[in-house]
């Protein structure tokens, strides 16, 4: 028996009511948050002291930069000619119930030559990993977090290759459909691998820096609350707060930065902040990279879409590069209903459908048969195939 929706109707009704009342409660907290943001001034020695102590306690807030924290910046004009490129990746995880152990990373990329009336350059590069050192990097089967990290590196490398070619013709903006802090790789238990992966990622980021292209990680519907943590810190009476106070949002509970910056008009961006997370300041910064971020309204006045944009500090420090990330994302989002067109297309080029995965398994099975091997899935997988297939009833 599958999901009996009729048994869920009452629960769904309750859920709807709960969401409505929670939304109203959360909305009531927003005016205070915005008022606090408006009060914060740059170079406030009291706040700076609090930030200094918070950082020593692995705080994950937002550190103000030279821009006033409540400043709003209009969208600059887009260069007449620019290259806008994006890369995205998808993966097939190792499946111990499948016909063979392997994993796959498929990277899709698109180079959009803004200002020219030509079709963008698209590509899709699949890579199959099946050797022992791929599958058992630490004598156990590779965890999905490591596959994800390998995928993220593949995306960034693809962009680095594009940057080398494209910067010769016009200013070049590279986009990724996620943040620039490699969280997944860092969560793996194997620290040595984690360091290696982070090293590869940061090296590639430095390669991009040397090409003079700029890069931005775009996050749709962000749940982050770094700036709200800054507001929480500002509200504290002094710098003698404890760890619990630092980890909670107090009056701003359940709010997000996206809600806080919901007043941005179409095309406008917020101030830039430094991401204070330990990943950024303790692992990225010693290797010469620091990630900063801003929020931008890439939608319309009727349908605002607040995106979080993460950029390296070297992009933020170069006005032309910063301007290209801002105008490039807004321009691309005009044709993606608030989300950059190139990111939608790179996802489309990367995604591996279930049908395609089935075809790949057939190809692998044929190859195994030719080598005299038996290619069978586990009994459990077989059972799932039988029971998950569309039901047919006689007489219908």
């Amino acid at each position, binding site marked *: 028996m599958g999901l009996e929706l009729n048994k869920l109707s009452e629960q769904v009704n309750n859920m709807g009511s709960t969401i409505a009342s929670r939304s109203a409660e959360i909305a009531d907290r927003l005016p205070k948050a915005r008022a606090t943001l408006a009060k914060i001034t740059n170079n406030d020695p009291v706040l700076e002291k609090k930030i200094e102590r918070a950082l020593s306690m692995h705080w994950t807030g937002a550190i103000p930069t030279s821009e006033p924290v409540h400043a709003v910046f209009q969208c600059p004009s887009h260069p007449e000619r620019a290259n806008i490129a994006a890369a995205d990746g998808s993966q097939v995880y190792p499946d111990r119930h499948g016909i063979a152990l392997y994993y796959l990373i498929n990277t899709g990329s698109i180079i*959009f030559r803004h200002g020219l*009336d030509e*079709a*963008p350059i*698209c590509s899709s590069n699949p890579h199959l990993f099946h050797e022992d050192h791929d599958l058992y990097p630490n004598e156990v089967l590779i965890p999905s977090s490591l596959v994800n990290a390998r995928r993220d590196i593949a995306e960034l490398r693809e962009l680095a290759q594009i940057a080398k070619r494209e910067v010769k013709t016009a200013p070049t903006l590279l986009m990724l459909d996620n943040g620039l802090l490699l969280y997944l790789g860092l969560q793996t238990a194997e620290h040595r691998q984690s360091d290696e992966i982070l090293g590869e990622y940061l090296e590639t980021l430095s390669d991009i820096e040397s090409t003079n292209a700029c890069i931005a990680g775009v996050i749709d519907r962000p749940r982050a609350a770094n700036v709200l943590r800054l507001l929480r810190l500002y509200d504290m009476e002094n710098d003698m707060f404890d760890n619990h106070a630092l980890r909670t949002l107090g009056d701003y509970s359940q709010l997000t930065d996206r809600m806080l910056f919901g007043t941005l008009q179409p095309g406008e961006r917020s101030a830039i902040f430094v991401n204070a997370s330990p990943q950024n300041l303790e692992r990225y910064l010693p290797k010469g990279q620091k990630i900063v971020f801003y929020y931008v309204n890439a939608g319309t006045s009727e349908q605002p879409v607040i995106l979080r944009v993460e950029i390296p500090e070297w992009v933020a420090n170069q006005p032309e590069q910063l301007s290209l990330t801002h105008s490039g994302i807004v321009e691309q989002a005009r*044709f993606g209903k608030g989300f950059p*067109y190139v990111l939608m*297309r790179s996802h*489309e080029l990367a995604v591996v459908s279930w049908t395609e995965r089935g075809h790949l398994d057939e190809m692998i099975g044929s190859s195994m048969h030719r080598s005299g091997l038996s290619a069978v899935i586990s009994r459990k997988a077989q059972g799932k195939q039988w029971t998950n297939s569309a039901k047919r009833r006689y007489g219908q």
Partner: protein
Amino acid sequence: MNDVNSQEKTNLSIPIGRMLRSDTTGFTFGCLLPEPEVPLFGDFVKAPAQQGLTEIIGIIHNIVIEDDLFVRQLIAAPELPEAYIQDQRKNRQIPIEVSVLSVGYSSQSNIIQGLPPQPPVTLDYIKRCSLNDVIHFTDRQDYLALILNSKETPAEELIATALQRASQARPIEDREIFLLQAGKELARLLSDDLSKLNSILRRIQVNT
């Protein structure tokens, strides 16, 4: 004859798409937009079957350009730059679906006008018939009954267009005789439906 010969060269065995689905009465194949030879309504095409033992001959009776949600939201975008249009047309893999009515098959150099013993298989290449293939196949007119009996095709339009294609495949001096014979066969098949007969004959005359 020069125009016919040059057209013949461009037609030689160029795959125009791959099979999507099929049954005994017809098949549907997919192709992408910037194909060098975009198929036309009324074109004769061929597909392999029975592991190459037979070649099914069919006539294109419908061409569908599918949309998707991505395209739909772009339609509403104001001042859509050309690069976005080119991306959708040239890069995105949305196939044009082309439906074909099976009207006969060739087996060991023999042409049989009628339904094939087996349909073609998924992902088989579909090719446009060469002018010689069309002339050879349309030497007899039994396939016209198959089109008339088909419920899924615009039969009058399809017959008129297919006869024009078959006529134009022939040398100029042979075209009138060919159409006259076709007209006689149609008169026999449509003796109880004079308005339909008249409609087809008028179209053939006007366009030749």
